[in-house]
Structures are given as structure tokens and as C-alpha cells.
């Protein structure tokens, strides 16, 4: 049910041309997917998605739109080639899922590599009940550290791009910064 709603939200995102509406729809889309994650037992992920996708990212998009203007002009070329590429790729992916094990089956191979160990042993080894936290911070500490560094690097990138003085580049033929 939620998945169907999500599909509808995705289609609406495609059609709408006013970018403010697009950003709001993207927020709704994030919130719906957070609901879906809750249903699929990923409470930590749902929490993050709701805070990030529906909160901060909407604010950032609005900030960017205030600088960029909010109207999208009609695409200049025909949509046939992209549509063809998308349909072919989608068809191949659906064909690929035919070999995938069914949804929610406890015998699926994903559940029998290291996940067993995390669930059965982490309480003795780490001593905290939330398995996601113990895997995140302890078993996969390196991952999380690299990822924290990536987030920091992104902030440095945005700083380089946006913290400099305005209008350093010469404007091409009086177009000016119309924002």
C-alpha cells in the first residue's frame, strides 16, 4: 500500500514543473519511505530518513531554490531516447529479480552470513541491546569513521564553493546574476 503511494509520489515528481512543489513532494516522498522503513523493521533507518529527508534536505533545497529561481523550463529535446533507455534498463532489472529469493523469507542467503553472529553474540560481546548501534559503532567502526570523514569533506566542499566572495567570474554578456 505504502509502496503504491510512493510510486504515485514518484510520478508526481516527474510531472510537476514548479520546483517549489517538487521540493515539497520530495519531502512527502521521504516521509512515506520512512513509514515504509518502519513497516520493514528498520526503525533506525526510518528515524534517520524522516529527520534527514523530510527535514534538513527540504530546508537545503529551499535555500538553493531561493538562489536559483523556481521555474523549470520545458525540456528541449524529445523524451523518447531517455524513455527507451529507462525501459530497457528497467526491463533488465526486473528480469534480474526473477532469480532473487522471495521477500521476507528467513532462509534467504542474506540472513546467514554475518547477521546470525551479530544477533546471537552481540549482547555478550558489546552489551547493548540495539544491534544496529553495536554493529555501526563497534563491528563496523572503520566504516563509520570513513563515513564521518566523507560528511566532513562534503562540508569543506560546500564551503569552498559557497563561502568565497560573490561574482568573481566575469558574467557572460551582461546576463548578470538574475536571482
Amino acid at each position, binding site marked *: 500500500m505504502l*509502496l503504491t503511494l*510512493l*510510486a504515485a509520489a*514518484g510520478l508526481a*515528481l*516527474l510531472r510537476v514543473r514548479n*520546483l517549489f512543489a*517538487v*521540493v515539497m513532494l*520530495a519531502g512527502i516522498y521521504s516521509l512515506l*519511505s520512512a513509514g515504509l*522503513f518502519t513497516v*520493514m*523493521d*528498520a*526503525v*533506525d*533507518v526510518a528515524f*534517520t*530518513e524522516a529527520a*534527514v*529527508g523530510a527535514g534538513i534536505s527540504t530546508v*537545503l*533545497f529551499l535555500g*538553493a*531554490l531561493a538562489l*536559483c529561481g523556481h521555474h*523549470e*523550463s520545458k525540456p528541449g529535446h524529445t*523524451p523518447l531516447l*531517455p524513455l527507451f533507455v*529507462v525501459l530497457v*534498463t528497467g526491463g533488465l*532489472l526486473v528480469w534480474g*529479480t*526473477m532469480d*532473487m529469493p*522471495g*521477500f*521476507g523469507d*528467513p532462509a534467504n542467503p*542474506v*540472513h546467514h552470513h554475518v*547477521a546470525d553472529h551479530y*544477533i546471537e553474540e552481540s*549482547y555478550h560481546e558489546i552489551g547493548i*541491546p540495539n*544491534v*544496529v548501534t553495536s554493529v*555501526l559503532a563497534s563491528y*563496523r567502526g572503520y566504516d563509520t569513521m570513513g563515513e564521518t570523514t566523507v*560528511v566532513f569533506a*562534503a562540508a569543506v*566542499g*560546500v564551503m569552498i*564553493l*559557497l563561502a568565497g566572495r560573490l561574482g568573481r567570474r566575469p558574467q*557572460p554578456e551582461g*546576463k548578470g*546574476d538574475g536571482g
Partner: protein
Amino acid sequence: MSLDLLVSHYNYWVVIFLMMVGFYILISRGNLVKKVVGLNVFQTSVFMLYISMGKVSGGTPPILVYGETDVLYSNPLPHVLILTAIVVGIATTSVGLALAVRIKEAYGTIEEDEINAIEARTEATE
């Protein structure tokens, strides 16, 4: 047979549909902010694929219950991977938006076609 397949693979197919919607937005729309939105849709669909794989029917969230041994938990590993992926996703989104803002300041537009036209004109005059 086919109904079974529909029920057990419905998740994957909707995920693929959403992925393709994001992909289509990404390659067919010229507006750079819209492209970033498309990228986000694509990204979220990948998150959903991972979380779908981690779900166990009848399982509970992977937060251990005191004293109970025969509780069925969903797989925590995809959750961890996606948790970090979401935060990296917002970081990359912010870099993309910052690039869009700078392009707007340099060219006065964020439409791909118009940027190409301006580039062609400046090349011709040089």
C-alpha cells in the same frame, strides 16, 4: 505460480519502478535542481531495496529483548549500511546544490540547454 511471484517480488518491482523514475528524471530533465531531486529518488529506491532484503517475515526490529531467546529479528546489517548511506546522501546532495548555485551565479541559469548555448556562443566569439 504467477500470483506467488507477484506477492513475493512486488517490493522489488516497485523499487525498480521508482529507481527508473529517478533515472528518467536524471537523464531527461535539463534543470539541475530537478536532476538532484531525481538523484535523491534513485538513491532512496536503493535504500528500499536493501531494507526489503533485510526484512524477515514475522520478525521484529533488531533491538534485543531481555531474557527471550526465540525471538525472530530482522537482519540488522542492511540497516547499518543504509543508515550511513542516508547521511552521506544528504552530504552529497548539499554539494550538488552548492554546485548548482555557483552555476547559476556564473551563467545566470541552471537549465542545461541554455548553459550549452552560452558556452557555444562564448567559444564562437573567442
